[in-house]
Structure formats: structure tokens, C-alpha cells
């Protein structure tokens, strides 16, 4: 079935945040810190203010000290006398056009006194290390206490079963490995962008590349000191999200500029600004210790994760202010003794945010690589080792979570049944690697309305934006099915935050499951109330109330390696998924293919290359995203018949495609090389060093 938004997008008619035009609109430019840690001695805006066409120049003093954040409110709208990362906003300009705004921004004179910086968690924990924040426990939403280590953002840990250290000491085979991943931008092609306009009624209207408009509305209230009703977040599609478009980002600053200039203002970032100063995936360092007995049964798993949280915690939305991917370490297997600890450090680097299954790609890379190595150390086939250790029906996970069904073995068997070796080109070495991931599916808070139209059709009004994954098309499909209509009789319209009860936004692999339940409720209300044309019914959804469901994904990667140059050529990726009902088979398949390509890009190409606290891969030529030529054939295998959630009986797919691909590729490289590369991205240089025995960096 065709996408409901397909033609509009493909012909350029769809209006994204950066495309919005308002009468009298100004354009903003931002002055950013060149230092990772410094005191602002003075800011001279006189020259910028005097430039023709400049309507507002704001500094930290002008916007005041109020802080924003998704959970921890620790992010200033503009720096308050201190800068904490390269790229932090120090001042901002609104002017008639972009060249004028950028010239005026360049004319703002800022005098800094550089201060010592901590750039990694290791440096952040060191005794006597400079503190990124004097009193991080004092921020609203903070989860740390005065007695915690000075630069701690968050610490979570879990353990279950027997004594991990004892079990490891008694294991026939063990591994103890350290894995690292760099900071990685989400790679959305649309840079962060917003437009703000203060109406005659004093309300601020916002158009923003943001996936959770109702949350944005709430998040705006503190820094600008107005109640949620004073904001209206207008509907626009999101030009790529992958977790990176959930924070208020530049909206508080843009709104302040709109107020100061009394004109609508657009703040659309240059991509280089986005790479250096948005909210990329956290850099990680993970130590994994794992053991098994002489028969290859896993005895214990100990996972210690340290994340570089960057200068602010405010870009992480969850109550723990951590990365929930850490909780899934080892979750697919029977492990009688497990311990996981996950620490996030404040560092003088770009603040870390969410990316497609936050923390899971890094965690699964480390754990699935370590378990692969454990199998090899034990002299066992990595596939057979996994199969023997996978959870079986009725098992709880190592941390004690129970699900309605457990289909890891079925998914692995389906993947292996479909697996066909692809020959490596002449002169290159072949490698095959496998990795697993499992993730629960939930539903989220949401709302919609159905209005009867003359002629028998309906319009579905929805509260959530279209970030690309096809939510609006799914609504159309399910409403048509529910009411016995043709899809063409169902229009879908995204409304502003004034119009419907709150929605939590698109993410967490919960959208289709939520829509399945939400549409069922709307259809039931529609059928019982039988609205006249022009009248509508509203349905809402709250989280919870569903059976506990998880889904398994098995990724099998094949690579060829050139032994002379170290070049890694991906040959094929097979992606097998445990599914229940699939609402739109084609969109589902493309979600998987897109996820796999993203995982491949994460594994082999992407590195923001933070040097001395500065993002040095500051354009898309240096921060490389996989292109048409980099992505090998992807084969999708579905294992149907699973138990889903909600009326749609759905398992999530949005974050199933990408996560385990990093580990599958790393394991394929290990298979080809006979040695393991433990740092991402796996570049030709890294492989060359392994092949030719040169010491690593």
C-alpha cells in the first residue's frame, strides 16, 4: 500500500520545520564556545547590535539562569558565565537574513579564560578532577547525591543469581575484554530546526523538528517561565529522528529571540553545528567478564559500562538518567550469576542523547562480542554455543523478567536455515558473525480523534508526528480495516498540541503497537456513537495494561577482508525477526533494512572523532554515513506467529534492525581475522594493524 505522505514528500511539497515561512520572519545564528571548559570573562555585542538588519542579540545575562532538560534540568538556554563543551551556545542573533545573522554572530566578541577539562569518564573519576558542575545534585530531576563522585551523572546496577566473582573463578573458560565505541551522531539528514512566533494573544507558536510535541510543550515551560497553555506546538514532519529529535534543543533559545525581536524567528542549524553541538550517542567503554563450564554453559556474566555523558544530563529522558540498553546485557541467555553496572559521567564534551535503542547497540556490541569470544575460547561453534545457552519457553531472563513467550531458539534456527555463505572475492578472507538482541514491546500515552465526513469517509486526527517510520500510514490502514473502508476514504491529519489530549511522541519501538490499540478504541467509540458528518469521537491511551512481550532478532553478517590493506567489505547481512501481526509488511521490511544499514554504518564508519574535547568530524564528509555503495544485500527473515501487544497484536520493530548488527559485523571480522577488534568503528586501519602486528593506538 502507498504511503499516505509519499507523494507530498517525493515532490517536495511537504513542509518541514526549516521550510516554514512566516510574515516578517527573522533568521537566527548562534555564537558557540571554542573551548571545552572556560570562564566567560566578557561578551561585547555592541558591534553586532549596530549592524543593519540585526534585530536582537542575546547573551546568557539576557535570557537568565533558568535551566531546561528532558528529565534533569541542567541545560542553560545560553551559557551562564561558564562554558562546558566546544559548541555550547554563548550568544545568539536574530537578523533579516542568514548572512547578516552569521556576520553579526561572528562580530560578537567573547573573552574566555580557559579552565582545565575532563574529556573522558576515566578523567572525570580521577581524584581531584575538575568538576563539570559544582553541584549536580542540586538540579531538578537529578539522581545523584552530594556524596557521589563529583562528576557522576547517573549510576544504575542490577545483579541476580549466584556470586559472580566466585562463579567466574570456578569457570572452565573465561574471557575478560574491554570494548569501546566513539560518540556517534544519529545521522538524521535534517539538521535541528525550529521556528517560533509570539502571537498577539501572547502565546508562542512553535514549529520544530521534534518527535514529541506535547513533551516539548511541557519542557518549554520552565526556561521561559510560562505555563504549557501559553505554547502551541504546530505539526510538521520530522526529517529523521533515530532518537536525536526528542529534546527541546534550540527551541527555548529561538523562543527567546522571537520575544526579544517581536518577530517570528527561524533557527535552522548548519549540519556542522549539529555534529558538534546536538545530542549524539554516548561514547562508551565496557568491560565484560564472562565464563562457561566445560560443556559450554554460561556460568556468569559481569558487565561494567562507563558512558561519557557530556556536559549536560538534560538530553536523556528516562527517570534513571542512564541508558536503558545496559539493562539488556545478556538478556537473551540463561545466566545463573549476573551483575551489570552502568555509570554515566559528566565530561566537557557534547552532551550525550538518545539513539535508536539508547545504549543497546554499544552494550550488545560488547556482550555479544565477549560471548562470541567465550565460545571460541571454549572450542565451541559460536552458533551452537548460543543455541545451547538461549532462554527457553518458561525461562525468566537473568535479571528475572518474564515474558508471555520466548522465541530465541526459533528465531536463531530460522536465521540459520536461511543462511547461505557468500563467497569472498578472490584474494580476500571470508568471515561470518552472528549476534542476538531481544527487546520488550510496550505501549505509550497517546490520543486521536475520528471525524465523520460527508460521503462516508473519515478523517483521523492524530497527536503524534510522522518521523518517517509510517505511523500515519498505519493509522490510515487500521482505521480503514476497522471501519470497513478503503484506505482512500481515510484522511490522516496531524494536529497541534492545542487540539488533542497528550501523546508521548514517537519512539521506543512502541508506535505501531500503540496505534493498534488506540485505533481499536477510536473505531469502537465511532461505531457506538455513530457521529454525524462533521462530528468526531476521541480516544486516548495510557501505558501499561498489556501482557509482557519481548521480541528476538538474530543478525548474521558476512564480510570479506583484504589481507593486504585491511579493507572490510560487507558481503551480506541476514536479519531474522520474531514477529506477531505485521500491519504493513513493506514498511516493516524497510524498517528492518534501514535499521541494518544504520547498524552497519555505526560499526564500520562513524566516529565524531572527539579530540581535545572538540568534534573533529564536523561535516558529513568526515562523519561518514553508509551510502548506496556501502550497504550489501540485506535479507529479511520473519518468524511469524508470535504474541504481540494491544488490539493490533504487534511486536515492535523500530529498534530491532540496528542493535545487534554492530556485534554481528565485529564477530564476522573476528572470524575472518582470527583476532578481535574491540573498538568501533572497525576501520581498514584497525584491521591492518591486527593483520600486520602493529601496536594499536
Amino acid at each position, binding site marked *: 500500500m502507498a504511503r499516505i505522505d509519499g507523494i507530498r514528500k517525493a*515532490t517536495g*511539497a511537504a513542509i518541514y520545520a526549516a521550510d516554514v515561512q512566516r510574515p516578517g520572519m527573522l533568521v537566527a545564528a548562534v555564537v558557540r564556545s571554542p573551548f571545552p571548559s572556560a570562564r566567560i570573562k566578557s561578551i561585547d555585542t555592541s558591534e553586532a547590535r549596530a549592524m543593519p538588519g540585526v534585530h536582537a542579540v542575546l547573551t546568557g545575562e539576557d535570557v537568565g539562569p533558568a535551566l531546561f532538560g528532558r528529565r534533569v534540568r541542567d541545560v542553560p538556554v545560553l551559557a551562564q558565565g561558564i562554558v562546558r563543551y566546544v559548541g555550547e551556545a554563548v550568544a545568539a542573533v536574530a537578523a533579516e537574513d542568514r548572512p547578516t545573522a552569521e556576520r553579526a554572530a561572528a562580530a560578537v566578541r567573547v573573552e574566555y579564560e580557559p579552565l582545565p577539562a575532563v574529556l573522558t569518564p576515566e578523567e572525570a573519576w580521577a581524584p581531584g578532577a575538575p568538576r563539570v558542575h559544582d553541584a549536580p545534585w542540586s538540579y531538578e530531576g537529578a539522581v545523584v547525591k552530594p556524596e557521589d563522585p563529583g562528576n557522576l551523572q547517573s549510576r544504575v546496577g542490577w545483579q541476580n543469581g549466584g556470586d559472580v566473582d566466585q562463579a567466574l573463578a570456578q569457570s572452565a573458560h573465561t574471557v575478560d575484554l574491554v570494548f569501546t565505541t566513539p560518540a556517534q551522531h544519529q545521522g*538524521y*539528514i535534517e539538521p535541528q530546526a525550529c521556528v517560533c512566533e509570539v502571537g498577539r494573544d501572547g502565546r508562542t507558536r512553535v514549529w520544530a523538528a521534534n518527535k514529541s510535541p506535547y513533551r516539548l510543550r511541557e519542557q518549554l515551560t520552565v526556561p521561559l517561565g510560562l505555563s504549557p497553555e501559553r505554547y502551541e506546538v504546530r505539526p510538521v514532519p520530522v526529517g529523521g529522528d533515530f532518537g536525536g529529535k526528542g529534546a527541546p534543543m534550540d527551541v527555548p533559545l529561538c523562543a527567546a529571540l522571537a520575544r526579544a525581536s517581536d518577530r517570528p524567528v527561524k533557527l535552522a542549524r548548519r*549540519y556542522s553545528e549539529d555534529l558538534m553541538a546536538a545530542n549524539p550517542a554516548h561514547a562508551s567503554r565496557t568491560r565484560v567478564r564472562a565464563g562457561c563450564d566445560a560443556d559450554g554453559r554460561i556460568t556468569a556474566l559481569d558487565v561494567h559500562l562507563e558512558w561519557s555523558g557530556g556536559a549536560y544530563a538534560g538530553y536523556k529522558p528516562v527517570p534513571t538518567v542512564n541508558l536503558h540498553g545496559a539493562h539488556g546485557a545478556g538478556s537473551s541467555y540463561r545466566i545463573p550469576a549476573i551483575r551489570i553496572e552502568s555509570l554515566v559521567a559528566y565530561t566537557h564534551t557534547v552532551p550525550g542523547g538518545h539513539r535508536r535503542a539508547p545504549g543497546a547497540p554499544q552494550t550488545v556490541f560488547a556482550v555479544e562480542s565477549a560471548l562470541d569470544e567465550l565460545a571460541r575460547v571454549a572450542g565451541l561453534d559460536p552458533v551452537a554455543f548460543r543455541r545451547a545457552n538461549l532462554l527457553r519457553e518458561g525461562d525468566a531472563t537473568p535479571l528475572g523478567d518474564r515474558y508471555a513467550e520466548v522465541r530465541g531458539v526459533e528465531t536463531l534456527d530460522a536465521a540459520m536455515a536461511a543462511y547461505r555463505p557468500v563467497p569472498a572475492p578472490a584474494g580476500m578472507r571470508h568471515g561470518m558473525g552472528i549476534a542476538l538482541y531481544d527487546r520488550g514491546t510496550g505501549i505509550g500515552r497517546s490520543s486521536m480523534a475520528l471525524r465523520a465526513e460527508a460521503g462516508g469517509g473519515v478523517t483521523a486526527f492524530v497527536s503524534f508526528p510522522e518521523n518517517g517510520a509510517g505511523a500515519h500510514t498505519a493509522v490510515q490502514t487500521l482505521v480503514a480495516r476497522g471501519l470497513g473502508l478503503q484506505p482512500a476514504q481515510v484522511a490522516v491529519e496531524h494536529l497541534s498540541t492545542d487540539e488533542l489530549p497528550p501523546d508521548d511522541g514517537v519512539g521506543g519501538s512502541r508506535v505501531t503497537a500503540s496505534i493498534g490499540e488506540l485505533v481499536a478504541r477510536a473505531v469502537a467509540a465511532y461505531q457506538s456513537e455513530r457521529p454525524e458528518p462533521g462530528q468526531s469521537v476521541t480516544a486516548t491511551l495510557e501505558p501499561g495494561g498489556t501482557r509482557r512481550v519481548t521480541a528476538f532478532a538474530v543478525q548474521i553478517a558476512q564480510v570479506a577482508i583484504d589481507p593486504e590493506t585491511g579493507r572490510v567489505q560487507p558481503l551480506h547481512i541476514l536479519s531474522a525477526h520474531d514477529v506477531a501481526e505485521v500491519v504493513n509488511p513493506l514498511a516493516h521490511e524497510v524498517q528492518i533494512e534501514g535499521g541494518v544499514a544504520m547498524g552497519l554504518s555505526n560499526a564500520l564508519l562513524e566516529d565524531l572523532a572527539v579530540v581535545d574535547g572538540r568534534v573533529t568530524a564536523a561535516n558529513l564528509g568526515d562523519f561518514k554515513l553508509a551510502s548506496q555503495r556501502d550497504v550489501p544485500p540485506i535479507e529479511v527473515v520473519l518468524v511469524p506467529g508470535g504474541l504481540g501487544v494491544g488490539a493490533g497484536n504487534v511486536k515492535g520493530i523500530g529498534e530491532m534492525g540496528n542493535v545487534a548488527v554492530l556485534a554481528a559485523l565485529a564477530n564476522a571480522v573476528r572470524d575472518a581475522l582470527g583476532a578481535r577488534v574491540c573498538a568501533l568503528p572497525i576501520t581498514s586501519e584497525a584491521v591492518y594493524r591486527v593483520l600486520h602486528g602493529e601496536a594499536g593506538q
Partner: protein
Amino acid sequence: MKVHLRLNGAGVEIDARPDAFLLEVLRDQGLTGAKEGCGVGVCGACTVLVDGAPVSSCLLLVGQCDGCAVVTAEGVGQLAPHIAAAFSDHEGLQCGICTPGQVVSAYALLRKNPHPGDAEIRSYMAGNLCRCTGYASIRRSIEAAANG
């Protein structure tokens, strides 16, 4: 400075700054199909045709286009609506931000070779990044447009 373009088939005279890039001028004309992605000629989201050749409009000064025929995604939508339809039907897009550029490049490719093979599509389209789809559905869309 005054610049004359044949823009999506119609002659226009535009008053532009000498340092303006074609992308900015097109967007100021309300043709916002071309997007600023990377801004440095890597991602392809700003792709338009200048005298029939696909170019990154973020890198081309508008003065260099004086007297040229410029076709944008909006224009391709008129000239070859079946390409946009194929992308829509075959899920050759998700978020859509790169899609106008993809469609312009696909149009140029199909004019060069009405039935390109897989390797030719991959090579020709390598300058149009897409973070959503993983590219296979874009190739399927182009193949469908070629056959449709």
C-alpha cells in the same frame, strides 16, 4: 545582481546577492523541495538539475546558473510523476527529507539509462544519502519507475 533562470520550464528573473547559492535562491522562491542537509555537497538532499545534470545546489553560486535551465523536485514531479509515485508505492522513503534529491537523481539516471542495473543504480545514486531506508527500497522504487 539579476539572474535569469529557466526554472521548472518557466523563465524567471531573480534579484539575488552575488554570494547566494542556488539552494538558498530556490528556497526563497518557495521551492523548498531541495533541502539543506550537510551544506557541503556530500548528502545530496539539495540535488537539482542544472542544464540536465544533477548538482548539489548548496555549492553552486546562483550567478553560475545565469541562463541555465534548473529543474527541482517539484519540476520532476510534473515531468515524471511516476517516479514520485514509485517511491511512495515501494516505500522508497520514510522521513522524506532526502527524497526530493533522490527523485531528482533517479530522474537523471533514468534519462541516461532507462533500464539501469543494480550496480549502476548503486553507483549513480551513491551521492544521495538516506539514513532511513537502507537503500534497497530506493533501488526497488527506481526499478519500478523504469518498468512502469
